């Protein structure tokens, strides 16, 4: 609710920019906003306080899932010694993730978490890139999607920690050893809050980065409508193109950071001694 209204205040600013433009030249201004605001496409009833309506972001999340479900089995379904084309590109990514993240941070436990980490990476990167397609939207610029992904990560982290150390052992093991007895309750609260804050930042980072990219493009294009001049138009367009190129990089970087931090948090839960 909180971040929904925060996003609303941001989109109000965006709408002001566009309304200003509509007074002037108008056409096409609405398309700029498509990227940022989530529209409800099909209205569905509210069940137990949860609005089940299908929105633009929901549809593009399904599109991303469909792309992954169609492309990945087609590429990796048959076992081939020498992959070709797209298989080569995807295999390079998978090998990079496996060697750079999973083996590096999880070691011999990595095999069990590999499916989850690779799934999360490909889901996030597909969603991020869909936001750059004209007319598309990225579901990861919605706080509820990133929060859900983070909740799954939090569940994986706490569950794997509790599986290794036992339910009580995991929670008590979070307190560092060798501190005065008086400080133990305080340290326990701080460590639990720290665990939650880390995952909260994980959700906010992905959400903020994806929304910020779209808002930057929006405000650059909005400059044309503010100045109401064709002479100024080339500069925002060059700027928006440059931001678009940067967005491609950010799409991969944020997916990489999300998966990196996921495996770091899992490894921190598995190795509590340091």
């Amino acid at each position, binding site marked *: 609710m909180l*971040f929904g*209204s925060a996003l609303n*205040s941001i989109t109000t600013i965006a709408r002001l920019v566009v309304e200003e433009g509509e007074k002037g030249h108008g056409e096409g201004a609405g398309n700029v906003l498509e990227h940022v605001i989530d529209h409800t496409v099909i209205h569905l009833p509210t069940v137990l306080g949860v609005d089940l309506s299908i929105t633009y972001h929901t549809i593009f999340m399904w599109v991303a899932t469909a792309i992954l479900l169609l492309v990945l089995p087609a590429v990796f379904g048959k076992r081939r010694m020498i992959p070709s084309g797209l298989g080569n590109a995807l295999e390079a990514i998978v090998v990079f993730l496996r060697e750079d993240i999973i083996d*590096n941070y999880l070691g011999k436990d990595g095999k069990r978490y590999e499916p989850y980490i690779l799934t999360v990476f490909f889901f996030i990167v597909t969603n991020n890139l869909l936001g750059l397609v004209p007319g598309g939207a990225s579901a990861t610029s919605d706080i509820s999607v990133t929060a859900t992904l983070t909740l799954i990560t939090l569940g994986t982290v706490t569950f794997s920690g509790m599986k290794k150390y036992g339910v009580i052992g995991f929670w008590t093991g979070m307190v560092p050893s060798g501190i005065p007895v008086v400080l133990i309750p305080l340290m326990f609260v701080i460590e639990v809050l720290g665990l939650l804050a880390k995952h909260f*930042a994980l959700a*906010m980072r992905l959400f903020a980065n994806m929304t910020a990219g779209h808002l930057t493009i929006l405000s650059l294009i909005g400059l044309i409508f503010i100045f109401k001049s064709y002479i100024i138009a080339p500069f925002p367009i060059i700027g928006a193109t440059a931001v678009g190129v940067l967005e491609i990089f950010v799409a991969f970087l944020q997916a990489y*950071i999300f998966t*990196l931090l996921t495996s770091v948090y899992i490894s921190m839960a598995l190795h509590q001694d340091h």
Partner: protein
Amino acid sequence: MESIALAYLAAGIGAAGAVIGAALGIGKLASAAMDGIARQPEASGDIRGAMILTAAMIEGVAIIALVVCIMLTIK
């Protein structure tokens, strides 16, 4: 009315402070990492991984500060 204006002012100043801190931290981190890569190019992979991880930690603190600022503007 006045208290709302003060809250907006506080949010602006707070966001500026958080950004200054994060920029200083990430700048210092990146300069050290570049130094390390220049001295030892063969360790660039390890250094890059550690740099991104640490930058993400600094960014996390900055994001929490910015969320506090956003809460100031909407409450």
